[in-house]
Structure formats: structure tokens, C-alpha cells
């Protein structure tokens, strides 16, 4: 067995660590540990001189193990792994002791914190002795992409990939393309026609030979891993029969969209009971037909628009649906241009005019003398039929916040701005493509800020309103972002598989399949012929669940072996 030559590097992190932890004391203790040939402190270990110091020591002292006592490994493990690699050392022969987030930042007792940092560093020293050099691997990948959903997001993603020259399967459940946008008249805030926006995309999609359009189709099954998925798609062919196709794809884009909130769930708006209380989508239909009228064919003199129907409420959805405010302002413009004498009341909680051009659009809505009336979050207007002597069909009653008065608003037509919600079958889609949903049913992204279109399953992306309510520009941007991610992967040509994953010792495996069920990433497969389980390295996230679950200790987590962990614990407890 080779002689272990360990270098320990204790970082001051300016004063972040040094003001609570006596780094020199930690260094001295480390220096005295068996196998340690050099121990140093430095102001900022992650800085270029700090990294150069480590690299020099690796060469000069012929170090074959490195411990860095510094910040969380999430912060700089990659940095120091690269330092090791550049100095000729396998990057997995490094161990980080977190003495900042888990020590100096959360303690103020200098002596105790120093003892804790010392123990953490000893644990890392004991652990690193047993580190093994590991290598990441690569696999071939399929360049075809599966896009689920033919709305504006799915169409855009498909076009982006197809026009770059790669095949796309565009799967749409309905018998036409366009999704929810196909139900809309004009779009806010620039009043572009939704039909024009869509027709341009649709004709380009239809004319692109790289897009294989599959209407009346649904994904039934997805197996495999990034670069090498197998999709099973069912296409209804009429007469109740259907055709099943198996498609090899490298990546999947989920663009399944949203469903509008069912206004019938709210009793106090009288939807379904009062004939002239309609939803925003019903009003879009009127606009597209070019006739704004009441159920009995009269031109309305008063139109009330109520915001946040089903959104931002404790009873229904707590979130904001993001598009309704601007859509309501669009209605203001469309009503005023169709019926100049009509009075429009916009009854809102807060006007969310957050996007580009939105504030100007809000101002335009004011300029045409819309009466904006504010109600309180948690409260709601009440709609009732008007009396015989009133010059209107309905009266909307509400506690108006900006005046502090209880008011009644005349209305011949009331438009309910219904919010967005996750589709009822979103859970089924999530299960099929192995991604998660939040409490509202929206698909969860890998990181809400830094990785908004990727998911925890490599190769599966979420774009548009299936991930959360959003408007057209955001949906389109996400579609293009996902396409760019996929094109980058295609450009690399290979899938890189992390060196850290679980491995099954087939001699020890009893074939009980417990690991198959506990794996949250569906990474453990069962080989029927051998009656043994094996881990698909590309899918494994090295969470260790199967390692812990295996009754015959047949599964080993690379870089998390029992010996490494036991040694780490021993090191931690050595001082006690």
C-alpha cells in the first residue's frame, strides 16, 4: 500500500472563518495527525495564490491526498478538484471540511468553534486516506428530441431545434396546434394578434422536414436516461383505434401548458347562475367573433372586469397568475374601441404591471377613462341582479380600498379574469417523465433562479406554463433556453457520466428488488435473465438510498464507501 502523504489547507476566508475559529490552532492540530506532511493557513484559499500554493505543495511534497478546511463543498469543491487535477492529482483524492457555513457562521464561542473546526478537519483527514482515484465516463447520445405540447412554447422549442438541423417529434394531444394561445384574440401589451403569432410558427413547423408532427398523440411511457431515452407514443387514428410508436430520443421538452380556473367553483360571482357573468376565455371568443354583446344580444353599456378569480386567495390558489392584469387592460382597449360609449370598470386587488411595456399599457387603460376600483386581498366583490328601476342588468358591490367607501357598480356584462392552474393530468405527466410537482401541481425546476428550465432528471426540460403561470415572452424565452441547452449537449456529442454513483456487487445481490422501488431517480434496473439488479450510472445521483436499503449490503456508493464514512466518524469523535 502506498504511503499516504496528506496536505491540509485551512482557509481564513478573510475574517469569515478567522474571526470565530483560531485557524492556526486548527492547522497545528492537523499537522500532528498521522500521514499529514504539510499543513498551512491562508487568507483566501480559493484565490489564485491560494490555489497555486496548494498546487506547489502537491508537487514539492509529493502529496497524494488533499484536505481543504474552508467553505461548503457546494461553493468550491469544483474549484479545488480542478486545482488537484491541474497539479497532476486525481480530483477525487480531495476532501473538503466545511468550517464556515457549518461552523464559523453559526457559532460565536471561539473556543468551542475552534474545537469543532479541529474535529471536522480531523474527520476529513481520516476520510481522505481512503479516497480512491475515480474517473468520469462518457456515453453516446441520440440527437432527436421529444417535445410534449404544441402550444406557443412547444412550437418555439421544436422550431429552434429543427432549424438547427436536428430531428424533433412534436407530440400534441389535440387535433390542432396552438394550445391555449389559439383561444385568444389580441395579446397585451402591443395588441399583436394571437392568430398571426401562431400561424407564423405553425406554418414553419409544418414546412420543416426535421419536425415530425404527431397530432392526437400522447406519451405513454418514457424509459432510459439522458441521451438515450425510449419514448412510447400513442396516436389516435380514428374509429377508436390507435397506433403505438417507439421513439429513441436524447432529450425531452415538456411544454404541456395550463388549464384555466373553473369559475363555477366560486359561488359569490354567480357564474352559471347569472347569464352575463362570463370568463375571460368566453370573452375572448366574443372578441374573435367580433361581437361584444349580452346573452340576449344587446350591446352592453357597462362592463365590469374582476381580477384574481381563483388567484391570490386563501380558498383557491395563493399564487398570482401573472397574465390576467394585462389581459384585463387589453379588454379595456378592445371594448373601448368596439363600443366607444361603454363604461368599463376594472376591479382589482393590485395591478401587476411588471413586464416590458406593461406600465405604459396600464397608463393607456387609464387614459380611456376606465374606472379602476381596488378591493382588498381576502375580500371579494359580490354580483347580484339589478332592480327594475336600475339602468343595468347587474350590480357589483365591493368595499373600495382607495376611497374607503362601500360602492355599487352597474354592469351589463361581467368578465371574470380566471387564473391559471396546473392541468389535472400534470401528475401523470410528471410520473411519466420522472419530474416533481410543487404543492400547486406545477413542475419543479432544477433551480428556481439559476437553472429554471432543467429538472432533477437530466435531459428532461420544462418550459412555458406547465412550470408556473407566465406570459408569452417568458414562455418563448424558456422554450429557446431549453433548445439551447439541448443543442449545447448535442454539440458535445457525448453524455458525461459523473464518477460518483452506486454500484451493485452482483455476487452479493439476492435479487430482492428493494433498491428498484426506493430509488427516487428510477436509476436501478432489474435484469430478468440474471435475476440481479444493476444501477444505470447516467441516471444515478449518488443519493445513497439504495446503499442504505440493500439488506445484503450488495450496493456500494462510490466515493461514499462504508470505510470512508466510518473513518470520517472516527476522526470526528477522536478528540472526545
Amino acid at each position, binding site marked *: 500500500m502506498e504511503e499516504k502523504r496528506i496536505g491540509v489547507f485551512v482557509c481564513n476566508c478573510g475574517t469569515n472563518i478567522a474571526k470565530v475559529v483560531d485557524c492556526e490552532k486548527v492547522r497545528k492540530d492537523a499537522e500532528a495527525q498521522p500521514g499529514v506532511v504539510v499543513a498551512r493557513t491562508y487568507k483566501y484559499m480559493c484565490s489564485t495564490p491560494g490555489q497555486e500554493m496548494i498546487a506547489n505543495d502537491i508537487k514539492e511534497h509529493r502529496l497524494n491526498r488533499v484536505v481543504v478546511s474552508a467553505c461548503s463543498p457546494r461553493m468550491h469543491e469544483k474549484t479545488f478538484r480542478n486545482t488537484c487535477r491541474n497539479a497532476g492529482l486525481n480530483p477525487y483524492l480531495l476532501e473538503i471540511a466545511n468550517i464556515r457555513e457549518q461552523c464559523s457562521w453559526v457559532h460565536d464561542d471561539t473556543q468551542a468553534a475552534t474545537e469543532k473546526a479541529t474535529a471536522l478537519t480531523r474527520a476529513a483527514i481520516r476520510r481522505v486516506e481512503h479516497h480512491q482515484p475515480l474517473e468520469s465516463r462518457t456515453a453516446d447520445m441520440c440527437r432527436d428530441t421529444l417535445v410534449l405540447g404544441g402550444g406557443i412554447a412547444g412550437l418555439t422549442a421544436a422550431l429552434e431545434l429543427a432549424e438547427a438541423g436536428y430531428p424533433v417529434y412534436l407530440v400534441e394531444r389535440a387535433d390542432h396546434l396552438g394550445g391555449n394561445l389559439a383561444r385568444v384574440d389580441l395579446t397585451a401589451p402591443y395588441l399583436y394578434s394571437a392568430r398571426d403569432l401562431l400561424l407564423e410558427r405553425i406554418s414553419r413547423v409544418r414546412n420543416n422536414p426535421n419536425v415530425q408532427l404527431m397530432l392526437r398523440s400522447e406519451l405513454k411511457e418514457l424509459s432510459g436516461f439522458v441521451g438515450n431515452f425510449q419514448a412510447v407514443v400513442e396516436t389516435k387514428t380514428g374509429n377508436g383505434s390507435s397506433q403505438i410508436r417507439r421513439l429513441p430520443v436524447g432529450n425531452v421538452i415538456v411544454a404541456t401548458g395550463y388549464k384555466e380556473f373553473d369559475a363555477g367553483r366560486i359561488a359569490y360571482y354567480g357564474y352559471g347562475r347569472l347569464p352575463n357573468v362570463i370568463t375571460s376565455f368566453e370573452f375572448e371568443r366574443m372578441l374573435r367573433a367580433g361581437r361584444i354583446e349580452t346573452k340576449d344580444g344587446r350591446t352592453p353599456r*357597462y362592463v365590469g372586469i374582476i381580477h384574481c378569480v381563483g388567484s391570490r386567495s386563501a380558498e383557491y390558489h395563493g399564487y398570482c397568475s401573472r397574465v390576467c392584469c394585462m389581459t384585463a387592460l387589453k379588454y379595456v382597449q378592445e371594448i373601448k374601441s368596439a363600443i366607444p360609449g361603454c*363604461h368599463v*370598470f376594472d376591479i382589482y386587488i393590485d*395591478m401587476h404591471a411588471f413586464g416590458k411595456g406593461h406600465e405604459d399599457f*396600464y*397608463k393607456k387603460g*387609464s*387614459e*380611456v*377613462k*376606465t*374606472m*379602476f*376600483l*381596488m378591493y382588498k386581498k381576502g375580500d371579494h366583490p359580490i354580483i347580484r341582479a339589478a332592480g327594475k328601476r336600475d339602468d343595468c342588468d347587474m350590480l357589483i*358591490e365591493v368595499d*373600495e380600498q*382607495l*376611497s*374607503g*367607501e*362601500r*360602492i*355599487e*357598480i*352597474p354592469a351589463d356584462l361581467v368578465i371574470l379574469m380566471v387564473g391559471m392552474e396546473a392541468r389535472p393530468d400534470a401528475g401523470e405527466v410528471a410520473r411519466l417523465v420522472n419530474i416533481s410537482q410543487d404543492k400547486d401541481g406545477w413542475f419543479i425546476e432544477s433551480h428556481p433562479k439559476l437553472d429554471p428550465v432543467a429538472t432533477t432528471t437530466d435531459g428532461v426540460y420544462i418550459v412555458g406554463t406547465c412550470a408556473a403561470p407566465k406570459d408569452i415572452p417568458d414562455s418563448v424565452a424558456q422554450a429557446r433556453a431549453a433548445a439551447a441547452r439541448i443543442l449545447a449537449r448535442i454539440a458535445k456529442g457525448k453524455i458525461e457520466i459523473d464518477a460518483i454513483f452506486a454500484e451493485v456487487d452482483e455476487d452479493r445481490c439476492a435479487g430482492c428488488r428493494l433498491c428498484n422501488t426506493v430509488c427516487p431517480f428510477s436509476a436501478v434496473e432489474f435484469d430478468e435473465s440474471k435475476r440481479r439488479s444493476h444501477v444505470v450510472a447516467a441516471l444515478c445521483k449518488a443519493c445513497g438510498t439504495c446503499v442504505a436499503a440493500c439488506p445484503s449490503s450488495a450496493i456500494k456508493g462510490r466515493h461514499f464507501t462504508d470505510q470512508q464514512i466510518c473513518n470520517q466518524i472516527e476522526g470526528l469523535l477522536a478528540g472526545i
Partner: protein
Amino acid sequence: MSIRVNPGFISELEKYGAADVQKCYHCGNCSAACPFSKEPFIIPRKSMRYLQMGMEKRLQGTLEPWLCYYCGECSEQCPRGAEPGETMMSLRRWLTSRYDFTGLSKLFYHSWKAEVLALVLLALATGIGFFLWGSSMGDINHYDGPQAFLPSSAVHIFDWSMAGVLVLLLGINALRMWWFSLGSREDLKLSFFDYLKAVYLLPLHFFTQLRYSQCESKRPWLVHLVLMLSYVTLFVLIMFFLHEMQSGPQVDWRVHIFGYLAAAGLVLAVILAIRGRLKKDLQQYRHSHASDWLFLGLLLYVALTGVVQHVFHRTGYEFSANISYILHMMGVVPMLLLEVPFGKWSHLAYRPLAIYFAGVAESALLKQNQQQITEQAGAARAA
């Protein structure tokens, strides 16, 4: 009890000059900038809101527009160009028309042509009347003496009769103002003592325009103060010292020095105001309603014809002095009859009255607000 909103009201107010109030989205910057906005009188946001929602009942009882002097700070701070200052100005015009029981005020604010027509007709009637009246009393070639065309004793009686008519008309309108703002409000319990202890506010603010002086820009206040003091001086001279004023032809400096100063002040202030409105160099001069121009034009005409008839008289051109006296009266009579009870000039009564009424009601309103807040907090806790 809920109040029905009236979406058409905002267009009605356009005739009074409020062209931009619909742009307001109630950020509250205007009320933060206003030196007079203080509970219970939130200026100008509260009135803007009532206006947008068409709550006429609430609006006709509000005193806030009269508590504003249009320094324009609010309009400068407005992020939406809703012109709160001009909106308050328009509301003063609208309130004037509301206080007026005859409907003439509304007619004149809606149509400047109607106002000009009324002015011209009244001027012609005055001219013809004075010519016939003068001819029946004396000779148009004589200004002073027993054959005087328009002897001061006769004009004196005319002046006091007209003052009586004006006081009656304006008094009725002022009473209506009281009824709208205080009298009809059952929620306000006001005692005689409340009215008595605030009464000092009336003369104080009438003569000093103390509140106006608190605006950041002092120039409009000074111009306005000079105009007002000059006018009051001339008013006192004409009403109480007409005999001394009109006798001549030699100059009686004990009386005339006041007249000269006041006339100079009046002409100067009017010219400055006209210049401001032409140059639009201050917020409050940027928008001019037809009624503003008519008012300034009339003032200038009356002041100049007064000066001209004085000069003709003192220099011995008695015929010309009498003619210019009639021309002067052809401006004075229509101006006073139309502007004091029905037009812009009515603010000489409404502004000090509003400050007085606000002083009377202030503590009661504050108590009421406090009570509302406590009740709301209680309801919130219960919920």
C-alpha cells in the same frame, strides 16, 4: 349602505378643465408633496378619488379644493401627468357651479360664449342705462358741479344697491356651501361654540392669505396679495369715499394717494398674472380655462378705464371723462354681477369660508376618523 359610482362624471368635469384626472393611479405622491395635506383633509388625493368614481354627493361637501392654492408641487411630483393641481382648480370651478342656486355658473363654465354674450348684453344695458340716467340728471359736458352728468351722490346709491344684490346672491350660495359641507352632514355633531371659537379664521385669512404664503413658491402669493389688497382698497374708497374720490378737478391727495397706489397695484398684479399665464412659467399658470382669461381681461379693462376717466377728469376733458366713466361702468357692472356670485370672483367668499368651516369641523372629523380606524382594527381582529 353602498354608493353607486358614476362613470360619466369624469367627462362632465372636463368642461371645468380637469383633462387628466383619469390618469391618476393613487400612488399618493401628490399628498406627500402638498404642504397642506394633513388629517383629516387629505389634499389632493381624496378629492381626485371621489371625482374618478363620480361620487358627486361626497364631492360637493368637500372643502379640500378650497384649501389648495395651486402651488403646483403635486403636479410636478405626479408620475402619471394626472395634473392634481389643475384638477383641484377644476373642482373649485365645479364647486362654484354647485353652490350657485341659479344654474348660471354652470352655464358659464360650460360655455364661454354664453358668458361673453351675457357680459356684452349686460354691458350694453349698463351703457344705455347710464347714458339715459346721466342725461336725465345733467349734461354730458359737465363732470362736476350742479349740472354734473353722473353726480357722486347718485352713483353712491347705485353702488350700494348693487352691493346689496351681490351680497344677497353670494350669501345664498355661501349658505348652500355651508349646507353641503357641514349643515347636511348628520354624522358631524357641531355646537354653536365650535362655530364661535373658529370665527377669527375668517378675517385672518381673508386679509393675510396666510395659507397661500406657506406654498413653496412665494411669487403667486405676493401677486395675489397685491391684487387683493389693491382691490379691497379701491372697494373701500368707492363704497365709502366716493364723494371725495369723484370731486375735482383738483387732486385730493389725502384720498387719491390710496387710489393711485391701489390702481397701480391692481394693474401690475393683473399684468403679472397675464404674463405668467402666457409664459406658463409656473405650474399654476400652465393651464388656463376660458373663465380665467375673461376674469383677467375684465379686471384689466376696469382698472384701465378707471384710470383713463380719472385722467380726463383731472385734465379738464369733461366730455371724455363722462364717456370713459360710462365705459368704465360697462365693465364694472357686468364683471361684478357675473363674477362675484357666479364666477371666479366668488372665491373671495368661498376660500375664507372653507378655511373657517374646516377649522370648525377639524376636531370632529379627526375624532370620526380615529373612531373608524379603531372600528376597522376591531373588525380585523374579530375576523
